[in-house]
């Protein structure tokens, strides 16, 4: 029986340990691998342009050269669209035809052609105009083609030598050329697709540089896609038309996504060439290159984290953590020392101990509410400070939050210092205060450091109290402790509940969270190393 119990115990323990590792693996590894892409990624020429323009980083000449080449290719691609547009813009063609007809009449008059000749010519022209305008309205390929042939047949029969009439025929010829290749019934769909493609192209390439239109307001719209993975996503949207269609195998089931290559839809037209070229030349246009964006940790973000880094967040987190440590360490140690060295065991001290233990389990949002009510709304006006969230209130709230942890671990540490040290010190004539400062405290330091580590980790990642007492979603980097700040934890929260821009840059979200985790781990590692060194020094090995 005991052997079975023993086995069960061992198996349970192993199971729990393995589960922990698996959960960590499942949870943390993908997070880290995604978060790392905020710093290490395939940066495009747009990224290098952005760094040059915004921060003056990088080799100006090289970037300019790359940009010129890229711009050339982009303009060629854009030209294809506008060519296709021109050929298919039926309203514009109709407009032009009417203008030509009017101008042609004037021309005839100016040339002094009168009488019957004038009438025949202009009624012929009117016929063509009307026929042309009619066929432009039609979506029937056969009808349009036959009508166009009729119009083009008159090209040589008549005395239409004027430049204007020749242009009219050229338009007809162009239109015929286009209509031969596409299904007019789909024309309205193509128009919509074209608008969509142009929109995506603006996102992909950045705005088209035109002298008359002002630069876009948001920084994110001023540049194209800075990362190759984002380029690929946008390319996919251009190259394929995604449609929800009924599942053929299971018509009653959920709809399935179908991706149709757009080059097939536009097959035969000039646009087909556009898609092929875009697919083949994307790498030449964007020149993706492995980039390590160290400045992610110092740069401020723009356009809701679309570009830039988490500098102010890191700064805010550190300031807030350090400030709360400044409050919590002395108070925690003094309280613990009092509890161990001075306080007698009576009801009063046991009430204090009980309160400390209960406070350690109070949810952080409660501390946040208290901090907001007490520090921000009540205390700040007493000192003629606007009752707004600020670093001071936040760090005081966080200090309160971790005080119980700090007191308890310090208490344990101080209590575990051997009595013999104290005796030795007292035996040499030191008073209690000096004994505490010179002997007990140094000997308790490793244990106290453990408390500091626990508090640090908790404070650095705390969200709810900071949201209520110290944080803003967007804002300047704080100048003083009376300004609010952004922190990694709160900004992660704001990003998670935030707008669709955040959803477009998931790597930034992961990057922020991973930065936070890494920071806490680094802090812990530093404290653990420090503790080990102190321990080693105390032990003298």
């Amino acid at each position: 029986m005991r052997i079975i119990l023993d086995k069960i115990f061992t198996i349970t323990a192993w199971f729990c340990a393995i589960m922990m590792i698996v959960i960590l693996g499942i949870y943390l590894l993908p997070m880290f691998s995604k978060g790392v892409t905020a710093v290490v990624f395939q940066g495009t020429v747009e990224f290098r342009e952005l760094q040059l323009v915004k921060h003056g980083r990088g080799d100006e000449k090289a970037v300019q050269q790359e940009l010129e080449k890229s711009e050339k290719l982009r303009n060629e691609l854009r030209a294809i669209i506008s060519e296709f547009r021109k050929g298919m813009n039926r309203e514009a063609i109709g407009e032009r035809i009417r203008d030509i007809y009017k101008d042609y009449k004037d021309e005839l008059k100016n040339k002094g052609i009168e009488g019957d000749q004038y009438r025949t010519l202009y009624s012929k022209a009117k016929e063509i105009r009307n026929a042309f305008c009619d066929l432009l309205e039609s979506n029937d390929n056969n009808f349009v083609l036959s009508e166009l042939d009729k119009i083009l047949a008159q090209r040589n029969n008549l005395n239409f030598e004027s430049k204007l009439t020749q242009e009219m025929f050229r338009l007809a010829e162009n239109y015929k050329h286009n209509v031969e290749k596409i299904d007019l019934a789909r024309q309205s769909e193509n128009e919509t697709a074209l608008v969509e493609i142009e929109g995506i192209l603006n996102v992909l390439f950045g705005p088209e540089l035109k002298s008359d239109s002002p630069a876009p307001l948001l920084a994110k719209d001023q540049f194209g896609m800075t990362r190759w993975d984002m380029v690929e996503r946008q390319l996919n949207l251009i190259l394929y038309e995604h449609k929800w269609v009924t599942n053929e195998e299971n018509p009653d089931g959920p709809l399935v996504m179908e991706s149709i290559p757009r080059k097939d839809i536009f097959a035969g037209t000039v646009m087909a060439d556009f898609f092929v070229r875009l697919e083949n030349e994307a790498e030449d246009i964007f020149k993706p290159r492995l980039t390590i964006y160290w400045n992610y940790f110092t740069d401020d973000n723009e356009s809701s984290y679309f570009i830039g880094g988490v500098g102010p967040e890191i700064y805010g987190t550190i300031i807030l953590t350090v400030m709360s440590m400044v409050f919590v360490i002395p108070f925690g140690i003094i309280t613990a020392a009092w509890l161990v060295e001075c306080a007698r065991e009576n009801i009063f001290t046991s009430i204090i101990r009980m309160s400390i233990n209960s406070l350690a389990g109070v949810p952080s949002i409660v501390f946040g509410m208290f901090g907001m009510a007490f520090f921000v709304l009540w205390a700040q006006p007493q000192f003629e400070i606007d009752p707004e969230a600020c670093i001071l209130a936040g760090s005081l709230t966080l200090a309160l939050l971790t005080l119980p942890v700090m007191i308890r671990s310090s208490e344990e540490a101080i209590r575990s210092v051997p009595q013999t040290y104290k005796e030795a010190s007292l035996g040499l004539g030191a008073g209690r205060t000096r004994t505490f400062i010179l002997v007990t405290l140094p000997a308790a330091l490793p244990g106290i450091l453990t408390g500091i580590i626990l508090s640090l980790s908790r404070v650095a990642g705390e969200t709810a109290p900071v949201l209520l007492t110290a944080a803003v979603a967007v804002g300047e980097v704080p100048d003083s402790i009376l300004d609010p700040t952004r922190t990694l934890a709160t900004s992660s929260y704001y990003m998670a509940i935030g707008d669709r821009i955040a959803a477009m840059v998931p790597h930034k979200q992961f990057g922020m969270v991973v930065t936070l985790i890494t920071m806490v781990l680094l802090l812990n590692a530093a404290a653990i190393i420090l503790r080990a060194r102190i321990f080693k020094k105390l032990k003298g090995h």
Partner: protein
Amino acid sequence: MQGNTILSANKFSFYYGAKAGVNEITMDIYQKGVTAIIGPSGCGKSTFLRSINRINDLIPNTSTEGEIIYKGHNIYDKTTNLIELRQQIGMVFQRPNPFPKSIFDNIAYGPRLKGVKNRSELQMIVEESLKKSALWDEVKDNLKKSALALSGGQQQRLCIARALATKPEVLLMDEPCSALDPIATSKIEDLIEELKTSYTIIIVTHSMQQAARVSDHTAFFCLGNLIEYNNTDLIFTNPENKQTEDYITGRFG
């Protein structure tokens, strides 16, 4: 028994709550020389020793009666300067208890409390104390080493050096060898032999051989009472009291 009295207890009692740890002890301690206190466990010998520099004050719910006169002054008087008292009556504990600091800092601890800051002066005190406790040759090359890295016997000699650094007149030793091996013990005993020419040493010990070897006077305590106090030779060869004789001959205790 003869010599100049440096310390004398006068009907001194020490109570743990209501229970007497030592009961109406009256004895004189003579200057320069070793006084050993022997007796079975729980007889109050350590309590008495620890009362002499008032280190027992740390224990809550204790009280004293009677007096201990040191250089004509009752140390249980309210006006006693505890720091001065403890610097003049140094103490070495049962287990070596060096601070988790360097050897140098351990020994300089006492003088620094007195306000000695001068580095060269401290250096001198440290060297002198270490030489007196016969540790200098072993540690002079690495005074910066942690005291905890020393062996048990070395640590105990370091503790003696630390006590000597405050230039005391009396040295209280509470079973200083009980945690040490025989070789370390003999070194400490040699050291006591040397130190007794310049210090008054009071040593509590469980080992009667040790008491016989190192002490000049021996006091036998039993159940909180002082049973017999005399020259060591007399106690061990010709005890006056039956209890003492039984204890020494190993019939009880």
